[in-house]
């Protein structure tokens, strides 16, 4: 992203030297537009006023008997007794709760779609331990029935990641959870890319008998070599860009483009990593190559280094209670998220990694709150909601656009039948950019993917 402004700055500079420019036999190459751009367009809708609800803003506040006004696809106002434009649709939300749209930072919807068969297994390019060149968006199948179920659970944005077979799995894509025929039409506009990396057992297991890495030290050597290779590449391109893109462009490499983007800070870093000691190694890796880790994913041992994660400003994107399926997940505890959260400056995220879990991230958070209570850690709803809204937005660097109910943000909003932190909570209405795209009481506002059309087994 930083390359483009640099190029424009140089171009402006050159424009003041017309003589030179006219005779230039070596003109600057034009900037290429970002490929595979988002074609998402918000659905236009009249203003909506949700009245008299308990509102969790995502910014730590709880407002009782408050209203939320959505207008032109944005949050227009939150507060008591709001005035609405004449054309606003007014919804009595008495007794109900309102939160920002839920954001899942770790989903494989579309890349491991339902039905889970070989034909839909598009999440791991398990042919090379470093596939920084692959982009998850080129695997996403928009007809995955899981998207609609996630929407019914209040999910309005989600990051689709490659799987964890590889040391570097490839680029993620952030989607708005809208039904569409193409992935581009779901792609969150102006969201940065993420990269998926993986520690520990998975790469070891997948590549142990396919040429390696077969050990954790092999894993770390693999990351280091990949970034070392990309350093030279980055330098060549940075020099070329700084020199006004004249002469022959350096050779382009998809793989190194992504890794260079990571080192430039353009691409957020998501690392699948379970053990505390391995997370610490990855932090040192990030320092060796000068990038920032945005979030550790799964991190079942994050509680062991909660203070260090907070100090490094790294979020823990975690499950409420998964454990034991691998040795590196053996030390899981039900208070993991609460302990990461409670560290000073800690950033806890509830993630799903599951087509079932993504439907009930609110319940996952409720489990954590209940477990924390057993050890006298009281977490109020207005705080916990950030685990599924503002914190993932921050880690995905879309927090200027969504993740809270602050005026001016995208009107991504969930209306719940009561407190979200309960088994019995249900998202009644889900708004994306101000448009009502899920209504539990209205079948006409419940999307159904093509795959399920005409399936007589369906209800």
């Amino acid at each position, binding site marked *: 992203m930083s390359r483009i402004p640099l190029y424009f700055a140089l171009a402006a500079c050159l424009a003041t030297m017309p003589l030179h420019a006219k005779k230039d036999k070596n003109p600057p190459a034009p900037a290429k537009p970002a490929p595979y751009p988002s074609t998402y367009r918000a659905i236009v809708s009249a203003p909506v006023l949700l009245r008299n609800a308990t509102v969790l803003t995502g910014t730590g506040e709880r407002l009782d008997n408050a209203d939320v006004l959505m207008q032109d696809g944005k949050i227009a106002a939150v507060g008591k007794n709001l005035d609405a434009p004449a054309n606003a649709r007014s919804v009595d939300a008495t007794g109900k709760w309102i939160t920002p749209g839920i954001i899942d930072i770790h989903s494989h919807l579309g890349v491991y779609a*339902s039905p889970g068969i070989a034909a839909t297994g598009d999440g791991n390019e398990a042919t090379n331990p470093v596939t920084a060149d692959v982009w998850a968006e080129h695997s996403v199948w928009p007809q995955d029935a899981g998207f609609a179920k996630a929407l019914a659970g209040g999910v309005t944005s989600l990051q689709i990641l490659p799987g964890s077979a590889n040391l570097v799995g490839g680029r993620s894509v952030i989607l708005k959870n809208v039904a569409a025929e193409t992935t581009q039409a779901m792609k969150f506009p102006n969201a940065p890319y993420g990269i998926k990396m993986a520690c520990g057992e998975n790469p070891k297991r997948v590549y142990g008998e396919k040429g390696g890495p077969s050990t954790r030290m092999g894993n770390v050597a693999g990351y280091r070599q990949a970034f070392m290779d990309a350093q030279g590449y980055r330098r060549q391109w940075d020099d070329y860009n700084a020199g006004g893109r004249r002469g022959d462009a350096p050779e382009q490499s998809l793989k190194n483009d992504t890794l260079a983007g990571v080192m430039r800070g353009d691409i957020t870093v998501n690392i699948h990593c379970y053990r505390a000691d391995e997370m610490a190694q990855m932090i040192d890796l990030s320092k060796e190559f000068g990038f920032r880790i945005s979030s550790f994913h799964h991190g079942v041992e994050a509680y062991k280094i909660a203070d260090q994660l907070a100090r490094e400003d790294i979020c823990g994107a975690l499950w409420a209670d*998964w454990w034991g*399926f691998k040795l590196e997940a053996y030390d899981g505890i*039900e208070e993991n998220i609460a302990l990461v959260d409670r560290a000073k400056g800690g950033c806890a995220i509830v993630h799903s990694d599951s087509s*079932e879990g993504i439907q009930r991230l609110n319940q996952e958070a*409720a489990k954590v709150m209940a477990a924390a209570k*057993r050890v006298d850690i009281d977490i109020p709803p207005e705080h916990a909601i950030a685990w599924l809204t503002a914190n993932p937005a921050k880690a995905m660097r879309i927090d200027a656009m969504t993740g809270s109910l602050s005026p001016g943000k995208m009107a991504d909003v969930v209306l719940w039948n009561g407190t979200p932190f309960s088994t019995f909570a249900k998202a009644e209405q889900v708004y994306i950019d101000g448009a009502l795209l899920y209504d539990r009481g209205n079948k006409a506002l419940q999307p159904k993917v093509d795959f399920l059309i005409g399936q007589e*087994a369906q209800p």
Partner: protein
Amino acid sequence: MKRHLLTIGLLAMASVADAQNVLIKNATVHTASAKGSLNNADVLVQGGIIRAVGPNLANPANVPVFDARGLPLTPGLFGGISDIGLEEISQEETTRDANLDLKTGESGLIENLRPEFDATLAYNPRSTLLAVARVGGMTYTALGTSGALLAGQGGVMRLDGGDEPMRRTPYIIIGNNSLGQSGASRAAQFMLLEQAFKEARAPTPGDERLLTSAGRRVLGQEILSDRFLVYVNREADIRQVLKLAASQGIRVALVGAAEAWRLADTLATRNIPVFIDAMDNLPASFDQLGATGNNAALLQRAGVSVSFFNGNDASHNARKVRQIAGNAVAEGLPWQAGLAGITSAPAKALGVDARIGSIEVGKTADLVLWTGDPLDVASTAAGMWLAGKATPLVSRQTLLRDRYLAPDNGLPRAYRQ
């Protein structure tokens, strides 16, 4: 704070060695029986057995009193069909014992038709999974085995550290999950089952090809009267299972049963219980295109006995069965049926209801006290009694938690006990 004190109270009680007497006063007793829920009720336990349930019970001598302060009390919960004690770490082969994986030649038939395989022989009651399940309020489970078409036997196990199954349960696996090992066709699965039952019942001398002699004995005699737990999802396959059950005269319960709601009336008429994962609402395979979150509610409304199990992370997250039941309630199942689905209904379907599954006089006193609605994830187990014995809600997980919560004492955490 209140909850914490309660737990401590129970811990103190646990130090009274082997005390199996207790009078639990002032609980909201969810009996999971025809009596439903009783407010301000007491439960008297003597010798590990429930002796009385009702208001204002007298306190016999030498019976300690526990004041529940109005909190909900339920029977110990069913942890689903799991590999608890049969699997420590899912991806570590050396810690997994639930499924038979004999290499017996190319056909693999003998491997797949081993009804004599008894997974409970590998049960390890010291597995960390037991205590984790107990912390979640689970007190019994059905050990499963699912490696093949005629997978063998599991058993019903109380999670009290004993290793004797209350009874054994034979398994049959239909559909996707055993297709690769049974002729690559659902039709082959039913063909093989039919032939195996026939061979077990009336072997033709010299033509015994499918089963071992032990297998014939087990299938033809020992387990024939037990209820077979049949993993099956697709409506058409369920129909064939019902035909098989009728033709072979065996009793079955359906497990998975994603499309069972389509046959709800038939299942009710034929008294066939189902074990379902109420959170399976996606077309996860071509066997489950009709999966819906309403499955439990539709079945129950038709009169089918509905029990719950965790179809995905069955062992390590057995505790999730409670959330699964709660979600079925959120999707329209009556609350009492939701509770029954993780207490009395599975006990009955598994044939252990004479001893466990409800708070009724004469039953084993496996009881759990809750901080709130036991079907809501916002609640946690606050106390547990196994056969009347107060059982600390401590697991490897709570101990790790406490180690990392403890204040720094200048030494590495490894010195914190």
